[in-house]
């Protein structure tokens, strides 16, 4: 199996599907000749040409709106938004139109596309290049939301997203684009949507996490293990629909639940998870559930390491909860 980083694995998935399915087109700002700001679409322009790898002007709402129309006509468009922070000009098309297509046609006429976009902090991008807006899309019925943490999942989840019948927002954690490396299966390889993965088994505390913060949670879990506390770390992988069963099964064993995410705390996906844990495992809890998250402020340029829920913030929470 070849070793790849996230960028290569996503590129591999796009290439694989474009070779297999001529309906697939990629569009976005600088995705063609330049190969994307993070070089994720590098080489696709040369292989598939400019009618399948389409450089667009700076028009997010236009890009997504046009992609919706392409999908209605039977294409499988994969628009790229350069940073998740720039998705808001397209928010109208995504929320008002894309998410509602299946519904408005009585379930018969979906608009199927995958929006790829880099997400999260870690590159000191400040308040317009660091945000994690997943909850704002989860809150819109009709969209699926995915966020891989490693190259193999990135490939497998992207191929599943492209073949899924519903629109998917595919968030790529830019902090680990090149830092996360691993074996990636050759050829056709899918990871089903809606299945979380237990990355580290444990029995004292359940840690739920996704994307780049997985590595911080694992780091904290390893440090806690040195003090005799064994955390079960669950990588959510698909943020919506949730694999709540895997989470609840774990919480019932550990009685302790921590969710970690980069987005601000209030009304984040963590809040929904805590609510579900309370609903489904309340009588098993040994301690109040906890959210370790970004602050309820815009994402700061400096203070990035304080804002992000890095292991230095996760570890004390684990220890405190274990003692509770």
């Amino acid at each position, binding site marked *: 199996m070849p070793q790849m980083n996230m960028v290569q694995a996503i590129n591999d998935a796009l290439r694989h599907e474009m070779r297999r399915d001529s309906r697939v087109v990629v569009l976005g*700002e*600088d995705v063609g*000749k*330049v190969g994307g*700001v993070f070089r994720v679409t590098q080489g696709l322009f040369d292989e598939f040409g400019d009618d399948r790898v389409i*450089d667009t*002007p*700076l*028009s*997010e*709402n*236009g890009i997504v709106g046009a992609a919706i129309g392409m999908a209605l006509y039977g294409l499988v468009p994969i628009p790229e938004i350069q940073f998740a*922070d*720039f998705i*808001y*000009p397209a928010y109208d098309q995504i929320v008002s139109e894309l998410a509602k297509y299946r519904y408005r046609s009585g379930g018969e006429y979906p608009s199927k596309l995958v929006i790829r976009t880099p997400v999260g902090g870690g*590159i*000191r*991008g*400040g*308040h*317009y*290049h660091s945000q994690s807006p997943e909850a704002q899309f989860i809150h819109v019925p009709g969209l699926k939301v995915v966020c891989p943490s490693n190259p193999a999942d990135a490939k497998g989840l992207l191929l599943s997203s492209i073949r899924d019948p519903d629109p998917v927002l595919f968030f790529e954690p830019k902090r680990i684009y090149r830092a996360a490396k691993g074996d990636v299966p050759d050829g056709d390889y899918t990871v089903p949507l809606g299945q979380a993965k237990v990355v580290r088994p444990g029995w004292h505390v359940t840690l739920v996490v996704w994307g780049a913060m997985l590595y911080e949670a694992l780091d904290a879990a390893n440090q806690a293990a040195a003090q005799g506390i064994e955390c079960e770390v669950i990588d959510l992988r698909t943020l919506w629909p949730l694999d709540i069963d895997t989470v609840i099964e774990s919480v019932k064993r550990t009685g302790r639940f921590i969710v970690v995410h980069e987005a601000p705390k*209030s009304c984040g996906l963590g809040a929904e998870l805590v609510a579900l844990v309370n609903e489904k495992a309340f009588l098993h809890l040994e301690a109040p559930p906890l959210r370790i998250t970004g*602050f*309820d*402020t*815009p994402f*700061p*340029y*400096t*203070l990035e390491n*304080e*804002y992000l829920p890095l292991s230095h913030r996760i570890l004390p929470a684990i220890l405190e909860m274990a003692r509770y």
Partner: protein
Amino acid sequence: MSLTITPTAALATVWNAVLPPEISAMTTLTNGDDLHLSLYRKMFQIRRFEEEAARAYAQSKIGGFLHLYIGQEPIAVGASAALRPDDYVMTTYRDHGLALARGMTPRAAMAELYGKVTGCSKGLGGSMHFFDKEHNMLGGYGIVGGHIPIAVGTAFASKYRGEDRVSMVFFGEGAVSIGDFHEGMSLAALWKLPIVFVCENNEYAMGTPLSRTLSVEDVSLKALAYGMERDRFNSEHVLQVRDRLGEAIARARTHSEPTLVEIRTYRFRGHSMSDPGKYRTKEELEERKKKDVLLRSRIELEEKGHKAALEAIDKEVEDEIADAVRFAEESPEPGPEVLEPTTYAGPFAR
């Protein structure tokens, strides 16, 4: 009278024929060499500031993104010379030049790049998000086009309050493809607002050349559909920029009429520091660098016998920038407590 609709492309050809780039024919220079020297000093200060910022970035003392304005200095400086201090300006993430031109100290600017608490936004914004209330510089904006309707709002407020303050909003030609640009233009024309839209057309939006961004390369033509005055010229001289923008500013101030001004320019560096710039040739870049407007001013002033004054400026600016770097390096980083009052007006109870 019958109204024929000319296809946009044909219209563009017509206008391009009527108004070739030479419409930039230099307006007579006014106000003498003292002004020119002071504007040269400002351009040079911006150039040297950014060169030092680039160096600090290469040493990882500055993080994130750094978009340099090198090559485009005459626009911010010429504009600032034509504006009043109480006029409002807003620009893109390529904002160091305008901030310095408006009067931000190199110290506050450099410290912001370093993410220090002494920076213009306490280190919370960084390079792309300068803000300077004192000089009515309402920020650098990282969402392309997002600031354009906001400037329409400040222009509206000026008119509403019966004041004659003008708003000037700067953006690249990339922004012309986004809805905010058109919505802002539409409102400003409809409401006859005292605003100047300045498109700094540097021929590239990241790696995409103008020809692949816009179906009609003459950005100023967009004004026609909104019934707005327009102007279009190459940035060739800082005083020319001042004079041409001065006309649009006067129109805004005295008649409350908006103008779209397209200024053709060129950036000598990559889109940001992380851009290797493979989408343009070395030859093209070298060719354009020969037309460096900053250099043109220097040569002109030297020829007019101002060598001593220029040397004094060199020294002053070098000292100023060295001082700014030292200040930024020595300033403390903010602690998390600095975030507390930044998001809501008071303490926020959860």
